[in-house]
């Protein structure tokens, strides 16, 4: 029984950078947030291991949202590249991290039964993509800049343009879901979901920067978005304390 594999230990999660579970301005969070404190546990092999990913799991166009749902032509909208690096809290590059993204189309409409916004669907845009980070932690997607859209929260609330990210590292405890915003969007400051992040620096890092140097001539503009996952802790000596 059990595994003899040596597993990395991770730094405890820094909750100061994360939103509170319960934020009155984001109304849906009120009934969907635990009232009890999370139980902090000494991570076991369950939390320190995780599923592995391989390039063979993916198809060649998975990271190109301008093409992976194109049927009759290219999708409508502003063509962009989103790129960056996945690192850990010690700034070490993290290779082979699974990055899954989803987003609305250029008009702010999602390809989803529950989205009833009047902006039309784009027959050539699905809105999902995925990739694995390279050896240096780098990743990129090509997509269409998503549009802002209204949502039911307070009257006349609009989401800033954003791309959803789900990031799966080597360990179960590194899993993270977040959203990427675009530099200069005036809706960022008015958004209740953005505002769930109280730490200004943490919020600033959710805003992708316009990156003219990575833009492709006569193809697309680029935005840079770096991601930081929980970091591996140096093990100075084996802890052999009894349970």
């Amino acid at each position, binding site marked *: *029984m*059990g*595994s003899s594999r040596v597993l990395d230990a991770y730094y*405890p*999660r820094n909750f100061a*950078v*994360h*939103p*509170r*579970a319960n*934020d009155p301005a*984001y109304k*849906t*969070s*009120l*009934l*969907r*947030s*635990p*009232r*009890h404190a999370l*139980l*902090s*546990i000494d991570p*076991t092999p*369950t*939390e320190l*291991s995780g*599923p*592995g990913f*391989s390039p063979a799991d*993916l*198809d060649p166009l998975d990271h190109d949202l301008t093409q992976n749902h194109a049927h009759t032509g290219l999708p409508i909208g502003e063509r962009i590249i989103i790129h960056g690096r996945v690192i*850990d*809290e*010690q*700034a070490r590059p993290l290779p082979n991290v699974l990055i*899954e993204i*989803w987003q*609305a189309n250029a008009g702010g409409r*999602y*390809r*989803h039964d*529950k*989205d009833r916004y009047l902006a039309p669907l784009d027959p050539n845009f*699905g*809105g*999902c993509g*995925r990739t694995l980070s390279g050896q240096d932690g780098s990743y990129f997607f090509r997509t269409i800049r998503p549009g802002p859209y209204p949502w039911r929260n307070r009257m006349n609330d609009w989401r800033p343009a954003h791309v959803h990210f*789900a990031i799966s590292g080597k360990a*179960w*405890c590194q*899993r993270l*879901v*977040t959203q990427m915003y675009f530099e200069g969007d005036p809706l960022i400051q008015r958004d209740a979901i953005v505002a769930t992040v109280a730490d200004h620096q943490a*919020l600033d890092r*959710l805003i992708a920067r316009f990156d003219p140097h990575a833009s492709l001539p006569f193809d697309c503009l680029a935005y840079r978005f770096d991601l*930081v996952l929980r*970091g591996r802790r140096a093990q100075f000596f084996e802890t052999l304390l009894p*349970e």
Partner: protein
Amino acid sequence: MLLENETASQTAGPFVHIGLVPDSVGIKQRALVSSELCSLGIPDGSKAIEVTGQVFDGSGSAIMDAVLELWQADHQGHYPEQSAGGFRGWGRSAIDPELGHFSFRTIKPGPVTTQRGAVMAPHLAFWLVARGINLGLHTRMYFPEDLELHALDPVLKSIELKSRWSTLIASSIEPVAQNDALLRYRFDIVLQGDRETVFFDI
């Protein structure tokens, strides 16, 4: 000293299915992971199981738009290292938008030994994201037939309020037919309230 802070979490939102389970909203993409963990067959010596449940909010209403991920050891208590053909230990299930439940078909994991030599009772790790959940929630499901192992499990033992243990223990569902080899379990997750599930900071 840490050089960087972890990227801040944001809710997965109501349209999470597009990204994590695209086939459930009619987007064609090769499935990376599914709610069937043994589509290539049940590994020798393991028991096939099905786990079904619902997720409830603080008003007692079933949540219809969550996505759950499952991570588990194989029947010998080993966490799979690679996906190469064998049992991968990884699953994903969206709540069915009509029926309101999630469902996984997999195998029962074996007990897992910790780095310190303690034995953890067989368990499934779940991670839950949805609209209104600002930071993904981690919990575990244990099996009702392993009561003796529960008493020794270091994670269960760390739950001070013993009355909350039961929120992590599934219930057995009677087999439909006598020759049914599939063991069925029910595991509900309650986000808030009197029967609130224990969630972990891992």
